[in-house]
């Protein structure tokens, strides 16, 4: 290669990689700009606090915000104990490279790769038809009580979906707790469970919280898993029971985008709804990033 061709190849590669990176920024920029430009005007207090009116062509999105919040809260309550306990088992109790630990890890990786619509169908089949009907039969409900779509089943379906996020980030957090702290604790006559409760989990807490926030922001934006398991097209009332259906920001966006009788009238509302959903997810991600950097700084300060 002559120096000239070498320089040309170098230049081409620099511009290609730079272009690829630029496309990412441009995409995000275009989406954000478009949504903010068209949606920001519509986000008023009325919009945030009123239910939809006039067949989705007026009013606000309060039931959808409330439904999303309640759904993610229930999901978090369900996913955190199971996810954290699984990670603790994998990292603290299972012998390294044991068959069971490897089996669980394979399951976690595959769970993370399942398309979210499949989780929706799974939720319908397993939670509503299998568990729900079983509960109705066992508890003696004459009419369908548990065997119907509701916020409990939707949140449990989302919990299964976000389980890998929690397991992976908790395991990472446990790995970051120095082995020295465990040996020091055991050498002082602490049992393994005391070491876990007093040294390991407190040390891993920030990482576990980061995992929780990431799971929440993932779960809050998913629509497919809740399509068949509890999300409602339109409900003026807020969910009051575990088997109530609920409105949801993501599903509401889908409904307004595809089911509106008057596209022109719905468009501003649609933009504002999307903006609210985006802000919610970004805010949650930001919280996760802040927790993580704080922990890193603390860890760096300890040496």
């Amino acid at each position, binding site marked *: 290669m002559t120096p000239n061709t070498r320089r040309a190849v170098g230049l081409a590669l620099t511009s290609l990689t730079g272009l690829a990176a630029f496309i990412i920024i441009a995409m995000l920029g275009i989406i954000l700009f478009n949504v903010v430009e068209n949606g920001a005007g519509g986000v008023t207090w009325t919009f945030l606090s009123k239910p939809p009116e006039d067949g989705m062509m007026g009013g606000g999105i309060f039931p959808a915000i409330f439904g999303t919040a309640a759904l993610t809260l229930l999901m978090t309550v369900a996913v955190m104990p199971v996810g954290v306990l699984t990670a603790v088992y994998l990292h603290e109790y299972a012998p390294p490279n044991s068959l069971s630990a490897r089996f669980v890890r394979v399951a976690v990786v595959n769970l993370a790769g399942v398309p979210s619509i499949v989780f929706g169908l799974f939720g319908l089949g397993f939670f509503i038809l299998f568990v729900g009907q079983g509960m109705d039969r066992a508890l003696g409900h004459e009419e369908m009580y548990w065997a119907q779509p509701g916020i409990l089943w939707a949140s449990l379906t989302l919990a299964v979906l976000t389980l890998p996020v929690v397991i992976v980030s908790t395991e990472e957090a446990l790995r970051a707790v120095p082995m020295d702290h465990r040996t020091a604790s055991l050498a002082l006559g602490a049992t393994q469970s005391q070491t876990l409760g*007093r040294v390991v989990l407190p040390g891993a807490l920030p990482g576990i919280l980061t995992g929780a926030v990431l799971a929440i922001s993932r779960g809050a934006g998913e629509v497919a898993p809740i399509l068949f398991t509890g999300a409602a097209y339109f409900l003026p009332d807020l969910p009051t029971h575990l088997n109530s259906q609920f409105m949801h920001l993501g599903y509401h966006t889908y409904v307004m985008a595809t089911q509106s009788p008057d596209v022109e009238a719905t468009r501003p509302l649609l933009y504002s709804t999307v903006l609210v959903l985006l802000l919610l997810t970004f805010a949650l991600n930001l919280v996760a990033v802040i927790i993580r950097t704080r922990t890193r700084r603390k860890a760096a300060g300890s040496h």
Partner: protein
Amino acid sequence: MSLNPNAPRPKMEARELTLRYGTKAAIQKVSLAILDRRVTALIGPSGCGKSTFLRALNRMNDLIPGANHTGTILLDDMDIHDRSVDVVDLRRRVGMVFQKSNPFPKSIFENVAYGLRVGGMKDKSALEQRVEKSLRGSALWDEVKDRLHESALGLSGGQQQRLCIARAMAVEPQVLLMDEPASALDPIATAKIEELIHELKATYTIAIVTHNMQQAARVSDRTAFFYMGELVECGATEQIFTNPREKRTEDYVTGKFG
């Protein structure tokens, strides 16, 4: 000599102890007594098995997958591997200080109180008393008494190591195992630790692993020389350093290898 009533009895004793990681033997048929209220130094080149031996004395090797042993270790004539022995209880009687100081990311007070708390002590004034006693015992009290509730990670390296010694002493063990406790410290901090070891031997039985020949000569009453997983020689420190029986011991303590 065994008829002399003042002769120290063995506090801990290994008999024909062989320890393997998987199938690889780390120490071979070591028989060694750790005398009561004496400082026993374990010396030898890296990988000779001295740390493994030390960790066997409070069964810290149990934590390493694949570690297994033959032979016996006695603590006051009780086999520490006996099924009736609770390993948690053993570690409260045989405390350990590590090479790298490893305070918990908690306050100075909570670090020292840790062993007491996991042992079930709840009474606040009793805890305070024991923490103060341990910190005084490790010559750290005057330096930290005004900031007991600040993070232990703010202490200097030498202070952290003395905190770890205080933490180990707080549970009032009978034996203290020290795995190169001063190897990461500067000479002044090292001198303080050595001074501390001198004071501690009135109450504790101490076994210390060290790479530093002078340190072994300074702090210990007895010295055991390990080489390639075997105990080559054990005797009074003075004898080991001035008049060793074995050629390999002489070569090592005079710096011809290792």
